[in-house]
């Protein structure tokens, strides 16, 4: 199972709830990068590790994460 996320960085407020909720710990706030509103947005720091479990997206209060999942052999 391979997953991927796309974060709507302009909507993200950097609350870190997804960082805590991710069972694999592959999310972190962007380093020295902010969106237009001045929030440090979240990004995936370990590429290819995502399984698409949707935990991050479910806890996101601003609905900024879209999750994709695909079975790969």
């Amino acid at each position, binding site marked *: 199972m391979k997953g*991927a996320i796309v974060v709507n960085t302009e909507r993200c407020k*950097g609350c870190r709830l997804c960082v805590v909720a991710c069972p694999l710990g592959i999310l972190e706030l962007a380093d020295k990068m902010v969106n237009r509103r001045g929030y440090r947005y979240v990004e995936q720091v370990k590429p290819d590790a995502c399984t698409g479990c949707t935990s991050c997206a479910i806890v996101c209060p601003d609905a*900024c994460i879209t999750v994709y999942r695909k079975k790969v052999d």
Partner: protein
Amino acid sequence: MENNPIISPENVVYQKPTLMNDNHMHYCPGCSHGVVHKLVAEVIEEMGLTDKAVGISPVGCAVFAYNYIDIDWQEAAHGRAPALASAIKRLWPDRLVFTYQGDGDLACIGTAESIHALNRGENIAIIFINNAIYGMTGGQMAPTTLMGMKTATCPYGRQADLHGFPLKFADIAAQLEGTCYVTRQSVHTVAAIRRAKKAIRQAFDNCMNHRGASLVEIVSTCSSGWKMTPEQANKWMEENMHPFYPLGDLKNTIDKQA
């Protein structure tokens, strides 16, 4: 990331509910309101009630709820959402009528309206966000503030002799004859969010099937009012709020009716 082959429309497993629009939500980072808004939008979408849903927004942080979910909304005077919901449901019995209220709106200024609407058994659903503080006005003490909890208006902590005791509104509602479903949920973890969604769905189902009044209390955080980070607020809620406001169903008469 843009070249990732997994990122294509057929592989989407979770996205923003289509009923939620692109308006930037005014809530503070990590606010539980966002999660509950999402659940409401998802449930209405899944039940296919987009054209039939009427929400009543309160006075409090969620006053702008009508800006974020694309269904019919009506703004009520402070605390009077259940009275307005009763009227709408009586005039339009085939609609899904729900109120979305905070603890200041439902358990303080609107206590009378809430209790009487629930006691009359109006076929409405009430979503009650309990964060034990007045979030919008700057963190003053609410009726639901815990004993010893510090707020702007009780800086030494809430004391029984000075401020009285916290109000367990869902417990009162469970005693009323008119309610068919009273539950207390939270949205701090993935599992809790799934349970809260089920509860909201049950309440909306009761509203559509005229089974009586439903109350879904959601024990929430107010990281700004509590002066914590969203992570700390969730932890504080688990340690302090959940022992006093235990989660689970307080009343469910639906199984007996079926």
